[in-house]
């Protein structure tokens, strides 16, 4: 490259100025976010486990909605950081920023000791959905059971696509970010409004049927050291708390089984246990054979198809993508070789993603045959968002207020 026009030689005392650049203020906010996250998590844990007050939890979630949602405008969030973690392991040239790594790890660590307090008090997505729960209806059990597999499938897909460099699908399919930024296309707002509208009647639709981070939190929360309790006193099995939970995560006392029922249950358990490896491998292979279809979403494969299409129809207007490729030094053979590599990667990762989905389905089936013996009402720690609505419904609790809170 050469200068087409010779550089001027000025006769006057004009000095060539520096390039005018607007530098960013600083990245101090990223570190402040981590500090706020830790403080909010500590506070949320204190409020759900010790203070046990719905009012305070609600206030904290409002603060989080305002800070993480509207002030910081959503990026980076722990939900989206799954993808950054994925590409940190799959793309060796990407180094993950410390703040993003901390955003991913800290809520997980907290969930191992205090349950899903992140969902109740800190997550802005949870907060915005919590605000609109006005008339929650219970989803019939079989439907809810089927839908509960969705977050696992979604997690498998987003990690699959992030690892292959297709894109960050959590960010693309994020329903609430247009509201936080007050900016977005018409379709974005329609999509987000659907979630909000559904959220009036079905509590927390995103958290329950989509959130991939909730999957990880749920697994860890199930084995958590401390969890939210409906009452600190002994349960009288009155069943009032069951009405309080908008996402029907309160387990009833299990009925006494007869010997015959127990035997049947065990037989079922054994059968599913044998089936699990079979389902896992099967689903892995099914996904692998479908990976050819998924790979067409990759930008490079799209480009190849576009070029072939244009070569056949010479009258058609060429896109910017294909023109850039044609003007570059890369040959079609190089592109084809690269695509071959990508497709083989799609197949390998596809098997893992399918196996993960199969394993989830197998374990969910196994869960059906398991009867958790408990003789009182208690929250299902895996799915409970620890929002604290049940506290005030319990007549045994000393903090009971006569009038239950609307929210």
């Amino acid at each position, binding site marked *: *490259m*050469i*200068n*087409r*026009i010779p*550089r*001027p030689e*000025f*006769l*006057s005392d*004009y000095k*060539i*100025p*520096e*390039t*005018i*650049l*607007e*530098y*960013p*203020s600083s*990245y101090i906010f*990223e570190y402040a976010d981590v500090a706020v996250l830790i403080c909010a998590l500590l506070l949320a844990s204190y409020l759900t486990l010790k203070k046990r007050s719905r009012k305070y939890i609600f206030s904290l979630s409002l603060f989080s909605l305002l800070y993480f949602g509207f002030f910081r405008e959503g*990026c980076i969030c722990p939900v*989206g*950081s799954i*993808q*950054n973690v994925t590409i*940190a*392991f799959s793309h060796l040239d*990407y*180094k*993950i*920023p*410390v*703040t*993003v*790594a901390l955003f*991913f*790890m800290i809520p*997980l*660590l907290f969930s*191992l000791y205090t349950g899903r307090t992140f969902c109740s008090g800190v997550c802005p997505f949870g907060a915005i959905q919590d605000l609109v729960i006005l008339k929650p209806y219970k989803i019939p059990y079989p439907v809810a059971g089927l839908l509960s597999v969705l977050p696992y499938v979604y997690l498998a897909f987003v990690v699959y696509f992030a690892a292959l460099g297709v*894109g*960050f699908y959590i*960010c*693309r399919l994020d329903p609430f970010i247009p509201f936080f930024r007050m*900016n*977005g296309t018409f379709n974005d707002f329609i999509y987000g409004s659907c979630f909000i509208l559904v959220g009036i009647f079905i509590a927390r639709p995103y958290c329950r049927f989509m959130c991939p981070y909730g999957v990880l939190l749920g*697994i*860890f929360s*199930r*084995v958590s*050291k401390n969890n939210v309790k409906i009452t600190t006193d002994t349960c009288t099995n009155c069943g009032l708390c069951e009405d309080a939970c908008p996402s029907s995560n309160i387990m009833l006392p299990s009925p006494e089984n007869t010997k015959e029922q127990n035997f049947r249950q065990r037989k079922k358990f054994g059968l599913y246990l044998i089936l699990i490896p079979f389902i896992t491998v099967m689903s892995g292979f099914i996904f692998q054979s479908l990976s050819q279809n998924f790979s067409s979403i990759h930008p490079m494969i799209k480009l190849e198809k576009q070029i072939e299409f244009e070569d056949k129809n010479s009258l058609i207007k060429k*896109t*910017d*993508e294909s*023109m*850039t490729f044609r*003007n570059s030094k890369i040959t079609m053979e190089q592109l084809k070789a690269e695509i071959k590599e990508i497709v083989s990667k799609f197949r390998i990762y596809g098997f893992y993603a399918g196996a993960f989905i199969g394993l989830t389905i197998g374990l969910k089936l196994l869960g059906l045959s398991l009867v958790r013996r408990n003789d009182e009402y208690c929250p299902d720690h895996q799915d409970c968002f620890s929002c604290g609505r049940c506290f005030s419904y319990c007549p045994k609790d000393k903090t009971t207020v006569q009038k239950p809170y609307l929210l």
Partner: protein
Amino acid sequence: MKKDLVSRRNFIKKCLNTAGTGTVLGLSYALIKKSIASEYIWQIDPYKCVQCGRCSTDCVLSQSAVKCVHSFDMCGYCKLCYGYFKPGFYEMETGAENQLCPTGAIKRKFIENPFYEYTIDYDLCIGCGKCVKACSMFGNRSLYLQVSHKYCLNCNECSIMKNCPSNAYKRIRSEKAFLLKVPL
């Protein structure tokens, strides 16, 4: 019997909790080893950019964070600047109808005959790249697009990057903030 059951459940729970803590700590260690202290930000590689114009339409901000940057040390200070004038206007009247920039963000200042200085008003620039295209066709390529991080929200997945036809967007470390052209 009942007490036994509860304690067995608790024992399993404790074991799994320890295993979970181990997993999280191990993962943290692996991640921290792969991490850097600075942030990653989006920036345009000016040598890859093809000025398709999507920067002005695909940003999540209503006025794009992509701005045209002018390297004075590459500019020819032309009187007839193709980045400034619309093609076909050789009277060199600086009226709005003769300017290429749709928002009039390029300011022209007389230095000495026949040299003119051109500066960009970042508040007006929408990053459409029209001037960039003209300058790279006929001029010294001293105009080029850059993401201004004063405005950029630094989305986890840049929505312009998603649609960039030439893969010109890349993540760079925040200490540098710009990918400037090197003057010839």
